[in-house]
């Protein structure tokens, strides 16, 4: 990761990045590994959605229809069972969404938007301002998964290092030549900022992102505000 002021002008810029052969090989290996993992996780999510959730639906409808035809049956008992089924459905849905985050195949902006809803629930004290395009993106599902995972992990690091932060601005810009995910963190103190920048988690996350996308992580500091940038190019634009 680099400071934005010195690095923004040269990376990735308007022209495709020249990538050394050795780095390209590591990238291809990591990408293969990541895609295999993603395939397995998607298959498990599909098993839940096309199997367990279908059976649960049938069970629920059976119970509802039976209760309508049996007014003498204990409504309290029946209501209890319906609630249990509903909770089970929600749990299974949550697991399947964790395995295969919604909208990755459709649109990265939609996937981030959907994830932000869950973060708002998870971190009610934190205000998320999301600025992202509404159109469908051309990112591959695998690439979208990397971006979303990166953002998710980054938020965890922020929560760990800046417990006092109460608002974040997340901006997504998707361009043919260069795409950019920016996270603006306001009102950070110098002492916490130093430990944040020295964090191993942040170092590993930045390196993993750069390896998996051939992109760059940069940051820019203005007084008490820091903005973190994840930059990447479309997969076809890279040159050896």
């Amino acid at each position, binding site marked *: 990761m680099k400071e934005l002021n010195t690095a923004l002008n040269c990376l990735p810029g308007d022209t495709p990045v020249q990538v050394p052969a050795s780095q390209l090989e590591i990238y291809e290996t990591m990408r293969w590994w990541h895609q295999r993992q993603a395939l397995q996780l998607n298959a498990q999510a599909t098993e839940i*959605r096309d199997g367990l959730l279908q059976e649960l639906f049938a069970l*629920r*409808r059976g119970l*509802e*229809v039976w209760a309508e035809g049996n007014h003498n049956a204990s409504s309290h008992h029946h209501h209890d069972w319906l609630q249990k089924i509903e909770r089970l*459905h929600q749990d299974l849905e949550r697991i*399947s969404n964790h395995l295969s985050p*919604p909208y990755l195949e459709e649109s990265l902006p939609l996937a981030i938007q959907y994830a932000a809803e869950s973060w708002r629930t998870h971190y009610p004290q934190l205000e998320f301002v999301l600025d992202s395009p*509404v159109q*469908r993106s051309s990112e591959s599902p695998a690439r979208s998964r990397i971006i979303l995972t990166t953002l998710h992990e980054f938020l965890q690091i922020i929560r760990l290092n800046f417990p006092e932060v109460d608002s974040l601005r997340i901006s997504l810009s998707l361009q043919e030549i260069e795409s950019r995910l920016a996270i603006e963190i306001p009102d950070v103190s110098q002492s916490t900022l130093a430990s944040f920048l020295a964090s191993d988690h942040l170092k590993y996350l930045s390196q993993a992102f750069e390896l998996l996308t051939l992109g760059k992580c940069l940051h820019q500091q203005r007084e008490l505000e820091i903005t973190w940038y994840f930059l990447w190019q479309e997969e076809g634009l890279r040159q050896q």
Partner: protein
Amino acid sequence: MNQSIQAMPKILVIDDHESVLTGTVSGLRQQYPQAEIVTAQTAEGAQQQIERTQPDLVMVDLSIPQAAVESAQTNTGIELLKTLMQQYPTLNIVVQSAYAKALARLKHEINNHEGGFTVADKSLPLKEMLARVEWALQGLVYTPKEMRTGLEMKHEWLEVLKLAFQEGLQDKAIAERMQVGERTVRHYWTQLQDALSVYPQPGKNIRIQTEMRAREEGLID
């Protein structure tokens, strides 16, 4: 919706799970005891049933196989929906799925579809699922929240809002001014109501709700 459709709708339910078909048909029978309900388990079977029965409403899962020997794929359901919306632009459709997110791929087609179009997640209680069926039969539109964000309002929808709430015109006069059919104006209403998240509620006037929401969003003065 005419009286005979209201009392005896012809409904096609498409799902590859026998147990889901049984549960869905039983639930529909409660609301529409005289309905003609047929089922299909594949996209091919669905096409044949539609040609044969000309249903008033199709209730379709997204993850279905193309033919009996094939495995279920979300893309098959998406392609079937796309074909149905092209071939039958006024067909009423309910998507009943455990994972309806893939519908985002059809946002444009759904916006242009002139029949009712609602989404019923398979987690919904029977009563709510039946409400989505009723809305679709009435020609209304209900799509998942994420698909509505960004409030992309078409020029025609804004024109309808302006003519109705700033000039006080009724649908017939709006149709004449816009040089379209009344049916098209009704279609614009259902689409913009979905974009504004305005749906039928007991005891509330949906047009007034629409006006209030449109003003909140700054779409009309």
